[in-house]
């Protein structure tokens, strides 16, 4: 029967071409608008590390106090003093700290101009904690951190640029006048949003190209290439050059810990409170401990990482789709009720209500499928054009894949069938006797 009803559906589409075209266009536009905005939204609001997002926590300590903190919240990163002390304490199974750096590869070989290399100064735990996949070699060891050696991990893309994609592990590279030995090359790795570095506002920026040990960068006095937030308190130690700044109260180092069990989480929280209390006793903090441990989801939410543009356009597009569906309900009602006589004949010949339901829902499904195909075409065009709607770094995240195509089609068919429920119910209620009499 399905095949027959489908054929009837196709025939009926041709019977009122204008009405049908109207429905198909409405569904097509509605589903396309929703899917285009969804294609962006799903990336910006996605979980960038689903396998362990509840085990990774960013560590925040209020070093400003109630007068200068942000409505009771600690700054979004740590000071040099706190980050180093907390990582050195080693109270979590894994802990990392980092800051953005911008170095350069000096001219050499066939390059006559220097090349910029952006990345992070961090520690050995970074790679394991954030599940960085390696193409060659691996990250460096905790011993190399302690020995403050000049080692470097390159990104796949940067290795391509500098070493032509060869296995460069063991080779030397000169970065801003200092030599580093390559210990690893990552695979393409670009979690979006870049949850661990929201402090620098680089959630959707180009991926890092290099990683060097934090202590090495510190020895070489490499300044942060990212944000430096000194807050509003006066006398935050910006007097005596770099040393004064390092040991002042400016926040610029994000820190993360990996805590695998609830027991570890509460133990770490206690430790953190204890650390802040100790700072209070030492006279550095003149307020009660105010610390935060925020996991990935919490942190993404707190930092409002989803651009308001993306949220508003998704809501408006969904509203648009709802209107298209309301429109479709009306048109389907008109289309179905026009065929009251036909329904009356079928019912009189013995068709149960269920058959009427089946026939008209399948017919609505064919309308939905036609709308879905149009929607698919419009979505493909639209995703190509999101550059017009969002900033380039966000627009490039939107892409059409099989799951988006399938969901476009499914959404169109399902939504149309739901819209058809009421018109179908009305069609099934048609009294055969009435229709036969009026004829």
């Amino acid at each position, binding site marked *: 029967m399905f095949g027959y009803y489908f054929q009837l559906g196709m025939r009926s589409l041709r019977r009122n071409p204008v009405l049908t075209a*109207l429905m198909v266009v409405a569904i097509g536009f509605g589903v396309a608008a929703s899917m285009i905005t969804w294609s962006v939204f799903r990336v910006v609001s996605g979980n960038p590390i689903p396998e362990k997002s509840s085990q990774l926590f960013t560590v925040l300590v209020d070093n400003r106090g109630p007068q200068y903190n942000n409505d009771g919240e600690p700054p979004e990163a740590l000071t040099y003093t706190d980050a180093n002390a907390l990582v050195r304490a080693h109270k979590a199974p894994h802990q990392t700290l980092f800051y953005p750096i911008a170095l350069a590869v000096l001219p050499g070989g066939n390059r006559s101009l220097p090349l910029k290399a952006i990345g992070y100064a961090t520690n050995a735990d970074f790679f394991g904690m954030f599940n960085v996949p390696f193409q060659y070699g691996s990250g460096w060891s905790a011993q190399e951190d302690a020995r403050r050696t000049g080692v470097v991990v390159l990104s796949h893309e940067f290795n391509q640029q500098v070493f032509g994609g060869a296995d460069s592990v063991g080779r030397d590279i000169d970065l801003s006048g200092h030599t580093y030995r390559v210990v690893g090359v990552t695979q393409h790795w670009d979690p979006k949003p870049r949850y661990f570095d929201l402090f620098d506002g680089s959630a959707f920026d180009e991926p890092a190209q290099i990683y060097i040990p934090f202590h090495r960068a510190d020895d*070489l006095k490499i*300044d942060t290439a990212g944000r430096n937030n000194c807050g509003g308190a006066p006398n935050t130690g*910006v007097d005596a050059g770099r040393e004064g700044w390092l040991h002042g109260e400016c926040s610029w180092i994000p820190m993360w810990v990996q805590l695998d069990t609830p027991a570890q989480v509460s133990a770490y929280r206690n430790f953190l409170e204890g650390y802040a209390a100790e700072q209070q006793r030492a006279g550095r903090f003149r307020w009660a401990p105010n610390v935060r441990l925020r996991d990935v989801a919490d942190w993404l939410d707190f930092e409002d990482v989803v651009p308001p*543009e993306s949220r508003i356009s998704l809501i408006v597009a969904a509203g648009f789709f709802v209107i298209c569906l309301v*429109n479709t309900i009306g048109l389907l009602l*008109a289309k179905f009720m026009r065929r009251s006589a036909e329904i009356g004949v079928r019912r009189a010949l013995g068709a149960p209500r269920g058959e009427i339901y089946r026939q008209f829902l399948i017919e609505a499904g064919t309308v939905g499928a036609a709308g879905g195909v149009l929607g698919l075409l419009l979505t493909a065009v639209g995703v190509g054009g999101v550059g017009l709607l969002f900033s380039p770094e966000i627009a490039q995240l939107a892409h059409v894949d099989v799951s988006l195509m399938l969901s476009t089609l499914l959404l169109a068919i399902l939504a149309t069938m739901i819209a058809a429920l009421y018109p179908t119910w009305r069609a099934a209620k048609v009294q055969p006797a009435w229709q036969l009499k009026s004829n």
Partner: protein
Amino acid sequence: MQIGPILVALRRHKAGTTLIALQIALTLAIVCNALFIIQQRLVRVDRPSGVQESNLFVIQNDWPEKLPSQDADARMRADLQALRQLGSVQEVSSSNSFPLRGSGWDNFVRLSPDQVKMTTDTAIFFSDEHTLATLGARLIAGRNFSADEVGSQSGTDRMHARQIIISKGLAEILFPGGSALGKTIYVSNDNAPSTVIGITDTLQAHMTGVWAKPYAYNAVLVPARLTGDGTFYLVRARPGQLADAMRQAKDALYAQSPMRIIPAQDGIMTFAQVRHRAYDGDYGMAILMGIISAVLLVITAAGIVGLTSFWVGQRRRQIGVRRALGARQRDILGYFLTENLLITLGGVLLGVVLAVSMNVWLVIRMGSQPMSPLYLVAGVLMLLLLGQGAVLAPAVKASRVPPVEATRSV
């Protein structure tokens, strides 16, 4: 026109009536909010920067080595000298940032050293005696920096801000109704006083985010070259020589020394590009909302045409009877126009409630502005017109139903 019979007839087809009214209500809610968003974005985009934007471009110059502060300063001065000598260049200056850049350096401002909460936030532009002329910003009071006042410092040094020039916007926030000239304010973290020696006309900050709206026109010019990993060169070309100046400037810098990085992408931008990049999200929202509103209105109109045509088809016999009983063509036309007006009125009533609730939600959750009632009025008028326009064709068709239709059984 008798409204009573129309209402009775409407009660006979509740479903269709409700659907049209609902569609009109939702359309009104979305279109009002979309138009309001468009207007908001366009207002933002049209804000003046206070910069004479034509003939101005920006070069991002990074140093590949870590330079001691004095060396970086020497290189910057040599670069500025080389750029200034170009025939196509009128003025040049170095800075850490510039209006509309998006990110940069901002400091809190206090009026006294022991004040706890900041009075406001401000952009810090490290400047020299050529900065105002390069940007094309006018002084409305006081004087410019002199060459010997301009020093240099690194990002981690104490800020040399004993004498500063501030923007009109900042002056008005700090000293409403009075003159800021000669006054002392506190903008540096070491809490040292800075004396205002000049006030510029309107000058926009680097901050363009919606959150920064209260600070969007706060700028402090500090007389120093900021040394560090790199700098921006702001270059004003002679009128009509922008393209030449951009090409020559890049060549001149590389001739001066190849040990520099000017990013291939966006390393050299005209100010028009800077402006576009600052506001591309706003343009995007305006375009998206525009497309959605237009398509929505067309679909709603088409929906009304479709359903009304269906009703007309259903009621051909009744129309024929009315005509046979003496109703004129325009009575039938009037019937369908009035019927649509009633439905649309019901729809817009609900729509106004929905539109306001949607706006309230956007205000609470997204931090948008409350919508002016003008948008509701405009939206209501637009939908009433749209409804009447859409119903016209089916109504005319209905009015042409001949009285003889009454005698036919189908």
